[in-house]
């Protein structure tokens, strides 16, 4: 194992902890030191809970010393996306609206993490209420891509991807409504999975679009991702849409890394024009490597994917406009009194607060959704979008009759520069063109690094998609590809990323 504890994988840390060659306090402190050293540059954390993390670490070390048998990841620290409620810890969703709000309860995912004995280092930055592909819509300023601090780390889960890529945590949680786990993973050279809809409880995730939201794991290796997937997943009676079945055998699949005999479909509609040459080149090579490992590759057409983005930007804003209605200053969060009114009514306070508390992108989507649901427009917009959704699910179903998994580039481009697309929502939305179909159909998807683009030296990602509840297939393919690439490169992709705050780290 790497002597620098922050460079080690979660699996390595878990083994070392289990053999008592290191303590959780050491591992946790190493990450807190790393955060102190580099997060000033990356700005991936919105809140760091050093005290709480160390307290958990100490407790785990004591329990281990007492001979207790502990869960696999006990003592391995983790970062939690700020969209998940954490009892006693701030949860802002990247919004001014929830500044200062301390939830009185834990999200089910957070409960699982605590039950697994994992110290929570802090909460990670995100686009406000998970709306965006760059973290530039965070009310607390953007996070930066560790590969190039002038570039975006993806979004909405850019805080989590940046934390992983800059070794400020070995693991992080994410949520993926249209690509918010997978696209950040792709542009930072990390791994991220959006499980099958219903595979991980949504209880305690501040909802963006309820029918699309899905929480999932972020890590630097496929195995680590699987280990965290296993902790996060499982049936939750508090979430009616939760699947009542055990977590698919993702860890086993990641360890076996076997694609021999698997049929892999390349989605014709997700590639080609509009995709950066370096992204395409690395994708083609990755597919070739899978063939080398015994997979069979065919081209598959999903014609209705062309309408996915349009349908998504009707369904998401519709649900979001309703989900975000609760932020009204009456019970929690921000409260702004309207100017120039002596005794404002509740409605006036609501209006003033929502005006001040929400950023432009949030307002844009609330307005879009309110419009799409209005009587007289409902059938044309929300209704049609739901039909497209059904057609996309049928495309997937037909494709999976022929193949075991589908693949495509995760995002059309590598990380773009901060500010590049901020004033062009359509360009920003197009970043998720390849990831959105999975959310609309509820099927699982993963992004795995495929290399770096020749033209800019930035990471690229390949997306793997599987049928609903067959999440383990993502890990079979992802791990096989990861192994093949590691053999070719001789070192993990992140070893090619520039050092951050190197002097400070050495001094620590």
């Amino acid at each position, binding site marked *: 194992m790497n002597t620098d504890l922050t460079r080690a994988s979660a699996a390595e840390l878990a083994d070392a902890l289990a053999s008592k060659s290191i303590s959780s306090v050491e591992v946790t402190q190493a990450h807190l030191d790393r955060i102190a050293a580099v997060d000033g540059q990356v700005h991936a954390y919105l809140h760091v809970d050093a005290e709480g993390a160390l307290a958990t670490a100490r407790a785990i070390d004591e329990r281990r010393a007492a001979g207790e048998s502990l869960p696999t990841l006990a003592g391995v620290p983790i970062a939690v996306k700020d969209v998940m409620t954490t009892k006693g810890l701030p949860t802002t969703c990247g919004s001014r609206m929830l500044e200062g709000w301390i*939830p*009185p*309860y834990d999200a089910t995912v957070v409960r699982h993490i605590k039950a697994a004995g994992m110290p929570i280092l802090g909460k990670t930055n995100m686009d406000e209420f998970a709306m965006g592909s760059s973290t530039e819509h965070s009310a607390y300023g953007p996070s930066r891509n560790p590969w190039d601090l002038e570039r975006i780390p993806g979004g909405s889960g850019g805080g989590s991807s940046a934390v992983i890529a800059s070794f400020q945590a070995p693991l992080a949680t994410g949520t993926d409504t249209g690509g918010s786990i997978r696209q950040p993973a792709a542009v930072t050279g990390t791994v991220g999975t959006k499980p099958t809809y219903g595979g991980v409880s*949504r*209880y305690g995730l501040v909802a963006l679009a309820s029918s699309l939201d899905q929480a999932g794991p972020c890590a630097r290796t496929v195995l680590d991702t699987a280990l965290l997937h296993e902790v996060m997943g499982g049936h939750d009676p508090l979430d009616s849409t939760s699947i009542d079945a055990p977590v698919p055998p993702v860890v086993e699949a990641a360890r076996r890394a076997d694609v021999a005999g698997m049929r892999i479909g390349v989605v014709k509609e997700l590639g080609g024009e509009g995709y950066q040459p370096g992204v395409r080149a690395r994708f083609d090579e990755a597919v070739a490597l899978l063939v080398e490992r015994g997979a069979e590759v065919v081209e598959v057409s999903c014609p209705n994917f062309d309408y996915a983005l349009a349908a998504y930007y009707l369904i998401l804003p519709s649900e979001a*406009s309703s989900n975000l*209605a609760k932020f*009204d200053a009456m019970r929690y969060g921000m409260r702004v009194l309207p100017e120039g009114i002596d005794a404002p009514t*509740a409605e006036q306070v609501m209006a003033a607060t929502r005006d001040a508390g929400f950023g432009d992108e949030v307002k844009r989507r609330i307005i879009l959704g309110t419009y799409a649901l209005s009587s007289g427009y409902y059938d044309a917009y*929300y209704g049609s979008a739901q039909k497209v959704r059904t057609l996309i699910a049928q495309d997937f179903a037909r494709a999976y009759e022929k193949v075991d998994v589908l693949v495509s580039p995760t995002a059309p481009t590598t990380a773009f520069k901060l500010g590049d697309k901020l004033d062009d929502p359509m360009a920003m939305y197009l970043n998720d063109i390849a990831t959105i179909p999975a959310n609309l159909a509820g099927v699982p998807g993963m992004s795995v690094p495929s290399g770096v683009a020749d033209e800019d030296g930035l990471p690229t990602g390949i997306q793997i998609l599987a049928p609903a509840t067959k999440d383990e297939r993502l890990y079979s393919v992802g791990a096989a590809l990861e192994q093949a690439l590691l053999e070719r490169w001789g070192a993990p992709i992140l070893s090619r990323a520039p050092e951050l705050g190197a002097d400070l780290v050495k001094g620590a």
Partner: protein
Amino acid sequence: MAVTSAADRVLDYDEAVAKFDPVMGLEVHVELHTATKMFCGCPTTFGAEPNSQVCPVCLGLPGALPVVNEKAVESAVRIGLALNCEIAEWCRFARKNYFYPDMPKNFQTSQYDEPIAFNGYLDVEVEDGSGGTEIFRVEIERAHMEEDTGKSLHVGGSTGRIHGAEYSLVDYNRAGIPLIEIVTKPIVGAGERAPEVAKAYVSALRDLLRALDVSDVKMEQGSMRCDANVSLRVRAGDDPRGDAQLAVPFGTRTETKNVNSLRSVERAVRYEMSRQAAILDEGGTILQETRHWHEDTGMTTSGRVKSDADDYRYFPEPDLVPVAPTRETVDELRGTLPEPPGLRRKRLQSEWGFSDLEMRDVVNARAVELIEETVAAGAGAAAAKKWWLGEPSRRANAEGQDLVSYAAGLGFAPAHVAELDRLVTSGRLNDSMARQVLDGVLAGEGTPTEVADARGLELVQDDSALEAAVDRVIDANPDIAEKIRGGKVQAAGALIGQVMKEMKGQADAGKVRALILARLS
């Protein structure tokens, strides 16, 4: 400001119904008395400390998710079946979006175009105008599930309304209580009896829901609330159910909210008919609006102007999975339905041998169950009715309580009445002694036997004292005795009274009479 202080002009009711034909639509909200709320595990106890029965779900905290209360779905299906509805094989919840401080999520989780129950009817009894009753069928459009909102308390205003209030407090204990909304189809053909039909419908619905044991149905506590939609159209022909009348298009309706007693339902419909008639009679038009009913003044005032463009942006609730009761479940629930209150009443009336009028008194006194239990405990139906509808009923009325809760509050049970009746039929007590015993029981002195013992109330069984008294009275009244001997038996009454007086009431009048006649035959 829409609220008017001056009373609206109203047209005399007879004149109103001579010129216009009413169409009603009644929406009744019923709070189910499930142990927990519709979408979370919070208790539903009425009257608890404000905001003490809340959790992240019913407070609408960020991240919280609803889970359907299966018991509430079961109640909804049973209500649907009892209302002769079809039960949906598959239906969804929907979000009704609007902003209001007492609604934690700023949307109400309700049902929209896929109600759990639809297309039913409820037969209600109304007077037929010639002393009898007839059945009026009220058709049910739908019954759907939803959650209640919190409760706003406006402080500082004179009327308790938001206008003029200094500040408002919100109690979220009620937020998330399961509600069933039962909506009728337009009720046509009631004519001048529309207010009576409205009251009879709500009353029959209340009885039905009570028999189903799904709700407390206490209108005064808000566990059953009625909104009355009323519109008028011009009269066409003499028969409100005739083809000519039914062909006339509906007029513009108003929705009167806050109608919280049976009597108010009748009054509010009647008032609204008179008010609308006055406007239409002058050639005016009715404003489609929400109106508030005022119990004290017996009037409605204008609330919010409502239009069909009111846009709640309904869409299927994505946080919940569809509700799909299997046909087996529905059939099982059908098996749990109680005998419909109307049929049950008819059966009991015939078993008890009561006249229509007697039965109506019993129903109005809410004594059906009490009498049923008293009879079951061994009393005769007539005696049970006599005792329940006598003193206990009078006292309950005086206390402003219904008989059931009054008796329950005193611990006065059907078994007591049956025991009292036994004491009379066995000959231990006469009627006036039984009344004294009842007083004692109602005063909490114990069971009828205990009271009779304690007060020393017992008809004299030792005839020697009685015979001596009879002899004394006969001796003291030779003239009357002579008349009786002469065949004027009715003159015995005067002697009986005196004997009873001698015996201080502790004698059986029938026996006294027999003794006197025997002596003087």
